[in-house]
């Protein structure tokens, strides 16, 4: 594996002068090609801020981010992003929303019809492609948003709490699909979450972030076999990882 994303002394300060808020960093980290890394921390710890900085959608106050060998100075277009609130537009159907990503990039959706069909099937939305977002459940909306974020076949995906607003059962269901998709295509995934269990279940590595200012407290390698189904989740090894992570947050006074 080779380094895909390199963070060197990345710092974010909002505002300036006396009112300045030191939100994040400095942080050093490398993310390898093809890995699934979670940024795990409580809300307000700056994990979304970090994700937006990697995407080039938020300026870096100090430090440097390199993505695939190039310095990140503006919006990165060769990645797939799922934002905290999904970016499905209400005036287009599920299919239309997926095509929107292509149209915005100047790609004719007709030339990608088979890919879109396959993508829809992989998240079980093939029968809902002509529905509008408001006609779908929260879980289906997130599945559609996921298709929208990866229809242009990005090698890197940044997912900002994509399952944050869903109920526990739906979350479990989508995690399973997300994992099998990752195992099939092996993109590099940066996954922002505040769920310890979710981070450990999905990731090859978990970056534990503590707040004010956001810092990476520890990076934990998750050495468990994929796919991580219920058996793996009830194993003593899994429980040990959960405990280790909880300990960090407890020592920090977060939980």
């Amino acid at each position, binding site marked *: 594996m080779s380094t895909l994303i390199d963070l060197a002394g990345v710092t974010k300060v909002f505002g300036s002068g006396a009112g300045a808020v030191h939100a994040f960093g400095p942080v050093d980290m490398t993310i390898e090609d093809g890995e699934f890394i979670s940024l795990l921390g409580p809300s307000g710890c700056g994990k979304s801020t970090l994700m*937006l900085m990697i*995407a080039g*959608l938020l300026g870096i106050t100090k430090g440097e981010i390199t993505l695939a060998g190039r310095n990140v100075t503006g*919006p*990165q*277009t060769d*990645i797939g*992003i799922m*934002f*905290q*609130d*999904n*970016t499905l*537009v*209400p*005036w287009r159907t599920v299919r239309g929303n997926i095509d*929107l*990503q292509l*149209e*915005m*990039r*100047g790609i004719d959706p007709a030339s990608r019809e088979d890919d879109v069909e396959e993508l829809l099937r992989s998240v079980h939305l093939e029968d809902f492609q002509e529905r*509008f977002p*408001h*006609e779908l459940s929260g879980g289906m909306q997130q599945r559609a948003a996921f298709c929208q974020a990866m229809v242009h076949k990005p090698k890197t995906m940044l997912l900002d709490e994509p399952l944050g607003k869903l109920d526990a059962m739906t979350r479990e269901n989508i995690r399973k699909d997300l994992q099998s998709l990752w195992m099939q295509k092996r993109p590099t995934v940066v996954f922002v979450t505040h769920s310890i269990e979710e981070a450990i279940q999905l990731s090859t590595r978990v970056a534990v972030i503590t707040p004010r200012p956001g810092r990476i407290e520890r990076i934990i390698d998750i050495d468990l076999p994929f796919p991580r189904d219920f058996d793996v989740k009830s194993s003593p090894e899994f429980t040990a990882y959960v405990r280790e992570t909880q300990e960090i947050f407890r020592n920090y006074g977060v939980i």
Partner: protein
Amino acid sequence: MASSDKPSLLMRASDTIVRSWMFIAFFIGFFLFWEYAVVWFDIPRYILTPPSLIVQKGAADLDRLLYYTYVTGLETVLGYVVAIVLALPIGLAIAFSTILRRTIYPFLVCIEMVPKIAFAPLFISWLGFGLLPKVIIVFLVCFFPIVLNAILAFNSLSEELTRFARSTGASAWTTFLKIRLPAALPQCFVGFKYAAINATVGAAIAEFIGSDEGLGFYIQIVTGNMRPDLAFAGIFFLTLLGLGLFGIVTLAERLLIPWHISVRRTTH
């Protein structure tokens, strides 16, 4: 939720009647009360006439009423259309230009505080009794709600969608066509509808001040002649005109943004 099994038009109409029977009963009751109150309380006919007489006398003067409806309608529609045609690009320019937002925008907000109708006598004195001063007054009444809502509309794209657009590397023009414009339409229609309601007010008042035809002129003249029956007939046609304009705008809204929540709520 699903839109595939739409009930027939007839079923929906009867459904509407059943649901709003109380309103319909109240509406009928109101006119019955009016009809008989005029008799019971012995109100002189030159003060107030019963609805039945308004219908009767109005029908007798239908030719004049219809022609004046056309005159006032022309003023209203011209002023309204010119307001949309000018307000949208100006609103767009202000929304996207920092300089304009700091100069023209606060100026517009200040002007908005001025009751536009107060300019009516001036325009009549400058431009005479013809069509033009009325169109200008309707335009003034309509322009501000449309332009202010347009500015709001084009400035209120969610941060998330803005970031999504930037992450695709699309040009400003593509982003405008595919995201900003459709996202702005619902708020634009708030302005269109508000202006449509007020457009006939502008036309009527302009005619009160100085004109020789139109519904406003008609209402003023017949009131002077102690004919409240004809005044109410004039008011009725003025109301129809306003409803007609509002109806067209609402229809356009349903056709252009059927996906929007305000439209969805009223159509099922």
